């Protein structure tokens, strides 16, 4: 067996390559080869989640703490954890709601801090000096000082104008008769479209990068036809 053939038949690479080809074949036609690997994928993902939850959370934080470290009170987490499974019975279904509720509550309770720490800077920064409509004094020796000052004012005017337009668009989402509001909201809508366009352009990058990665795997890692 040549070195190259041995490499091509390396189980890890071969599994990955066949699986990749099978999954991608779906775009041309739904087929058995695809279905086979789709089920392998689901089975592996499920098994991995289970294994990882045990090895990285339950075993070190719960089992070992209870069995080896003498923290017997951890046993009390078991009945609480079992409450999730109430969902499978009519009688105890409400218990699963109870435990989910605690998690909802915990997350909701952090909303105030999140509001103040994450969101408030967004408000204050919209009115910060670098968003002012009065330009800063020119930097000495700057040959384009006027250009910089004009662009500072125009950019900030545009920035604040767009924030207002978008807010008007959202705040007056219900039917409006006032022309000024309608026009402003319309501008807000256009700017939003522009912003969504930027997101769409970036989406293409993400999706293509993922496909290029797969092709790189096939032609570089597996077939070794492409140089690194």
């Amino acid at each position, binding site marked *: 067996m040549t070195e190259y053939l041995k490499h091509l038949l390396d*189980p890890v690479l071969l599994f*990955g*390559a066949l699986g990749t080809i*099978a*999954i*991608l074949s779906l*775009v041309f036609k739904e087929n058995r080869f695809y279905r*086979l690997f789709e*089920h*392998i*994928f*689901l*089975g*592996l993902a*499920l*098994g*991995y989640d289970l294994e990882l939850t045990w*090895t990285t959370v*339950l075993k070190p934080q719960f089992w070992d703490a209870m*069995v*080896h470290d*003498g923290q*017997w009170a951890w046993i*009390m*987490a*078991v009945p609480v*954890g079992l409450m*999730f*499974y109430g*969902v499978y019975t009519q*009688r105890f279904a*409400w218990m699963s709601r109870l*435990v989910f*509720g605690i998690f*909802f*509550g915990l997350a*909701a*309770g*952090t*909303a105030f801090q*999140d509001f103040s720490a994450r969101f408030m800077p*967004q408000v204050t920064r919209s009115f910060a000096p670098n968003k002012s409509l009065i330009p800063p004094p020119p930097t000495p020796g700057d*040959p384009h000082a006027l250009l910089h000052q004009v662009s500072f004012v125009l*950019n900030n005017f*545009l920035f604040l104008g*767009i*924030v207002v337009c*978008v807010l008007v668009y959202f705040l007056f989402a219900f039917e409006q008769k006032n022309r000024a509001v309608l026009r402003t909201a319309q501008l*807000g809508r*256009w*700017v*939003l*479209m*522009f912003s*969504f*366009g*930027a997101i769409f*352009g970036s989406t293409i990058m993400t999706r293509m990068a*993922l*496909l290029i990665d797969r092709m790189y795997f096939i032609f570089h890692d597996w077939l070794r036809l492409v140089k690194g």
Partner: protein
Amino acid sequence: MPGHGAAYFGKLAFGLVVMFAILAGLQAAPRRSRKIIIAFFTFLGGLYFALEFFYPAPSGENFLTGYQPLVAGLGAVIGSFAIGLGVFSLVQLHLRTLSRLRPGWGYSIVLLVSFVAMTVFGLMNEYSPNATVIPTVGGLWQSQNAHGMFRFLFSGGLSNLGSATFSIIAFYIASAAYRAFRLRSIEATLLMAAALIVMVGSVSFGTALTAGIHPKLTDGSENPWANLRIENIAQWLLMEVNTPAQRGILFGLTLGLLATSLRYWLSLERGAYFDKEL
């Protein structure tokens, strides 16, 4: 249990009994009070972090701050018990398909075998990675240890299949760009213009188009025309047009999030899930 006597078992049993007794008590409560019980515990969960934030903490910490690791630890352990929900549902579904030999039962076998194999070899990889799991068979194949099997399943299978599954969307995006991107209105035109500028401005063929405009003038000063380089136009659009638009959205979203959080916390949320009979 190693290092622990019967007394320790007693404590464990005591813990279990106490918790089950509490749960039995809750179960025995009148049906109409269940919503109140859920609302109470939801409120209690939220109260901890809300109080921890609002209660004065001159030194940066108050009497509740110290319990955060305990809450995180408890949450991680209890939340982990939920893993069985997904496992149970999927395994049950495929066992049923298999037992009734419904069409596609072969795939159910594949799924179950993959599931068991990953669980077993994953655990072995953690606790006894060098254990031989496949012996050498003549010249056909060499022996394989648990770590090798896990690598085969994870790096060969799971990882590549996951990447492949999500890469399919690239084809649909290309097809959608061709089919759906029509200049039918101002909105559609703006959307497309932004998409194209951002795309062209972020890849090398785009930047090559305007690479002739030098960032510096011959005297070493900044070239104002360099603002017209495609990557600079894209950057300007992202910073000066996209940013305020996104900030506007963010204002709306955050206020909505705060309101929704309050509704969850105080159990005021309505809808199919929340209004269900208990």
